[in-house]
């Protein structure tokens, strides 16, 4: 793999790793078959870094996020936080929760309709027995942009707008003073005009609190908006990763290229055909080869890699900050 000039520049700004997946595999039993939802992933989130994990539904991105949060146990491989492997004893997991927090897609469902905003925010501090609950809650609310905080204490979720609810969910995560936020499609169910505000909030939190974030999304525009690095996932593996500027302006993996091409406004559309990806039936060779437009158009054959595409497995990409793609054609 040849490193470009820009890639080496990116390395110099690399931050120390905080949260890491190492050779992570997560399998489920699905309709009598084994589904390899996460099938060998190396991924690192640095201190104060925002990483976007991009992929279609069913690619395993949500399972990966849940595993990083310790809500799912890996079949093999490990989740590492702050240089140590995650300990799954209930006491250690509870301590881990104060470091890594979750923001879900649907703010309406993420809040118990019977709890007031105050109760929703105090839940974390109460579980962990933190002192000065009221103070913690008020600070978290104002950090999430709900000011003045006491005006929101007694409101119920249904009395708030969608954007305000998502701010409450983010504030609830902030109340534990975490180092990393894992956000699963944080703006997908919000109105367009509110979307930018919530994304701006994530950027502001990174700036003010040094908060890292892993943002799981299917939206490349979101990655462009807020992420430093992007990892593209297909059928349980990361197929391309690197700094956003490079991956999203000059994608090297055919899958990333196809994703980019279907964005509105893009000049030429590559609409992938074939069966939608199924984690119970991962094809041999390159896992993307059955739908790959480069292979289908014969460009891979011209380059003499078509045989490899169909039969030769690709190595699992390491967790490095530089641009890399798991593709025989791109690596030639």
């Amino acid at each position, binding site marked *: 793999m040849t490193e470009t000039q820009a890639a080496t520049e990116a390395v110099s700004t690399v931050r120390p790793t905080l949260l890491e997946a190492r050779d992570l595999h997560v399998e489920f039993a699905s309709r009598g078959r084994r589904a390899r939802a996460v099938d060998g992933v190396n991924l690192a989130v640095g201190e104060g870094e925002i990483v976007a994990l991009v992929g279609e*539904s069913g690619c395993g991105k949500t399972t990966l996020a849940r595993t990083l949060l310790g809500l799912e146990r890996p079949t093999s491989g490990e989740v590492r936080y702050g240089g140590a492997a995650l300990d799954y004893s209930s006491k250690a997991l509870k301590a881990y929760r104060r470091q890594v927090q979750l923001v879900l897609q649907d703010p309406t469902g993420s809040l118990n309709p019977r709890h007031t905003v105050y109760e929703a925010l105090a839940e974390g501090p109460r579980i962990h027995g933190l002192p000065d609950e009221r103070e913690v809650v008020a600070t978290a609310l104002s950090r999430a942009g709900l000011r003045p905080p006491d005006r929101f204490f007694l409101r119920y979720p249904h009395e708030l707008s969608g954007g305000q609810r998502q701010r409450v969910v983010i504030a609830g995560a902030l109340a534990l003073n975490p180092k990393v936020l894992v956000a699963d499609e944080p703006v997908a169910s919000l*109105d367009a005009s*509110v979307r930018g505000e919530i994304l701006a909030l994530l*950027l502001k939190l990174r700036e003010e609190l040094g908060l890292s974030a892993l943002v799981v999304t299917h939206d490349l525009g979101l990655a462009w*908006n807020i992420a430093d690095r992007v990892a593209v996932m297909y059928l349980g593996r990361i197929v391309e990763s690197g700094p956003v*500027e490079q991956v*999203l302006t000059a994608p090297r993996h055919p899958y990333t290229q*196809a994703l980019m091409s279907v964005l509105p406004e893009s000049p030429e559309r590559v609409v992938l055909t074939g069966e*939608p990806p199924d984690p119970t039936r991962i094809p041999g060779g390159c896992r993307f080869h059955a739908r790959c437009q480069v292979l289908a158009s014969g460009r891979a054959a011209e380059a003499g890699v078509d045989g490899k595409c169909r039969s030769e497995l690709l190595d699992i990409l390491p967790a490095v900050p530089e641009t890399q793609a798991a593709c025989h054609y791109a690596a030639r």
Partner: protein
Amino acid sequence: MTLLELDDLSVTYRIASGEVPAVRGVSLTLDSGAALGVAGESGSGKSTLAMALLRLLPRDARVGGRILLDGEDVLAMKWGRMRAVRWAEASIVFQGAQHGLNPVRRIGDQIAEPLLVHGLAKPDAARRRVTELLEQVGLPDWRARSFPHELSGGQRQRVMIAMALACSPRLIIADEPTTALDVMVQAQVLTLIKDLVAEHDISLIMISHDLSVLADVCDQLAVMYAGRVVEHGPSREVFHDAKHPYSKALAAAFPTVGDPASRLAPQGLGGDPPDPMELPTGCSFHPRCPVALDGCATMDVELWPAGPGRNAACVHVQEAS
């Protein structure tokens, strides 16, 4: 030729605590074979507008103004005529593709149902028509024997489109047809809709909160805010060079990847959509408007001309012209 004309359409819901004006005086026209995009957020009245076109609103809604479909007043139609119109002239594709299909009946039977019920085809002809429709939406004909759960989300949405096409309507109303679908599938469905509109001379009204998608599919774009159209014009122009600050914000919400201006700078709009029962005075957008003037809180706005074929309800537009 004008297919659909809305003249000062208004819809008000009556609820226990009062009246909720959802659509407040919308006038739009749609030529046959043209595609109109209606953009707006939840609560802007865009879905209510779509439902009003086929009189699908709940009983507690009061509709005012006129809806002319091919010169015929939809609001004055008899019940039987209305039903015929719903099948044969205009059909609607909803966003929840999984809920629109009966889980225990085969796809083919569901597509053929309107044809058989309305006596438009004999069983044999209906079967041929189903094959043809499936082909049009890019599904193999053996899919007619499948049940909905055997299909993916995108395939189900294709079936919904095939059902909408069954009686060869002249107008299709698509309410957020691609929300909840993956990017790749979304692209497939949008391409399909675009092709169908172009090939079969069908008119389309597409509703979405994503301006970039609408700009991609539609010729004309109407942006709604608080029950009113605040900007109207050729879709590419509205998307790239919005005149109304709200349209600008909507357009900027979905950034163009590769555009340095939006890199690490998400564009949002402060505040929340207004409560329809307590609409702000003057221009309803003024509390959230980044370029509001003192007068905006009191002065009434209307759609002023904003360039060739364009209108916008903003005082800045009025001043410029």
